[in-house]
């Protein structure tokens, strides 16, 4: 069953058009990867779904319902959570407070609570009262993911989880992602790390300059095809 879809989604930053009509679908329980070069519009796409950018009303549908007109804080309550690019933790809040504020918009029942997040990321429990900015990059990413999980989302949008992280740390993050997937959460994953993205995704889209240049199952996509779609050669 399609839980999330976009139809001819466009997005602008002022006068600059970043997305030129994206058609996309996410099935329940699926993990979909979005790959592409810098500036291709991947983060913009997630922001548009999450409601941080204005978009046409009918361009985004959740469970068949148009949500384009809803503001971001309403969309979280419907079960769509975005883990933003670059972590963007709240500097004035401790680790635990960052996690707690993630539950502010919680409207749905689900498996995630403070205790559950600490089980997923035990190191956070040790540093729960530390200011969030004193954590390492990998730990901050864990807080960011945990924070988004606290609203018990059905759909998790992840923007560049491995950005700026050492490979060994990324591996831990992706291990946690497997756990999240196992609970039935549908995931949309924006990644520049092709290896990780393709290894966890059921399907993948490639964006280039604001358009979808390639779509399919990872095993069906040849390296040359991805290359061409990624760079536009």
């Amino acid at each position, binding site marked *: 069953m399609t839980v999330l879809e976009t139809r001819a989604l466009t997005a602008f930053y002022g006068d600059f058009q970043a997305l030129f009509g994206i058609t996309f679908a996410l099935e329940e329980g699926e993990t979909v990867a979005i790959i592409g070069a810098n500036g291709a519009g991947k983060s913009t796409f997630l922001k548009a779904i999450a409601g941080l950018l204005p978009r046409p009303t009918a361009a985004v549908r959740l469970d068949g319902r148009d949500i384009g007109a809803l503001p971001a804080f309403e969309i979280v309550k419907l079960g769509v959570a975005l883990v933003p690019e670059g972590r963007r933790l709240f500097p004035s809040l401790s680790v635990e407070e960052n996690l707690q504020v993630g539950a*502010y918009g919680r409207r749905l029942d689900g498996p995630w609570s403070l205790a559950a997040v600490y089980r997923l990321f035990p190191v956070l429990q040790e540093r729960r009262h530390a200011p969030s900015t004193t954590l390492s990059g990998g730990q901050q990413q864990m807080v960011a993911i945990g924070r988004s999980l606290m609203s018990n989302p059905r759909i998790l949008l992840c923007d560049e989880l491995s950005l700026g992280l050492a490979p060994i740390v990324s591996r831990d993050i992706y291990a946690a992602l497997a756990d999240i997937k196992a609970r039935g959460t549908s995931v949309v994953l924006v990644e520049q790390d092709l290896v990780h993205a393709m290894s966890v995704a059921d399907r993948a889209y490639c964006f280039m300059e604001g358009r979808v240049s390639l779509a399919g199952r990872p095993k069906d996509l040849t390296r040359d095809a991805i290359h061409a779609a990624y760079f536009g050669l």
Partner: protein
Amino acid sequence: MLGWIDTLLQGVLLGGLYSLYATGLSVIFGIMRLVNLAHGDLIVLGAFLMLAAAAAGVPIVLALMLVVPLMFLAGYALQSVLLNRALGRNILPPLLITFGLSIIVQNGLLETFSADTRRLHVGALESASLPLGGGIAVGLMPLLGLATAIAVIVLLNAVFYRTALGRAFRATSDDVEIAQLMGIDNKSIYALTMGIALAVCAVAGLFLGARANFDPSIGPARLLYAFEAVIIGGLGSLWGTLAGGIVVGVAQTIGAHINPEWQLLSGHIAFLIVLVIRPRGLFPRAVD
């Protein structure tokens, strides 16, 4: 020597009053990055509302319990209806709207109450004083003002640091975009913030009116003292604002001690000095 101790003490008590003026301003700026140019006039409005209640025979404490929620609602409405529409990158719209509001409040009060100076009477408390030994005594009302300033800060900090709503306020202040991703409706946070600020203005109005004569035109000067207290204290810290208020108060009383005509100037000069040597204030927030 005794004269100087007394001056210092009076300065601290005056600082408590200025801190009460400044707390609302500090909260608004911390959360919304907004400066309300009508802030001083709204404190004066609070004083006049209490005056009206007192004239109707309502005892002071009851009047406070009526005016504070009333001003809270007024602040909530002000933000929801007017200022939420004007917030954005450009600072001119909110500046001009609150400036217009300042003019409206001042002149509205002028039309309603005339330019005569007034005083809020709080009965026996007015002239009561607490002897501290050594021939020094402090007025009970100013002492109560300082105590109230501290109590307000303790209360607000309790909200900000111990409640879920407080976390929402702080998150909005840090990063309004990501706060929305947490399910926080920033417009309603802003409205609550303005409501809180005006409620504190109401309390400040009580102490303004009880301390000295007041009339519709004294608002802008209060805004300046409040603003100076916030800047000296450092943005983002309510205790810093208290410290800032005390710095301004002490500067003023010291100046007045030397020459009564120099009271206001001393406060402004202290502000400018702090601005030059510590532009971020004495206790700024670690991140900004």
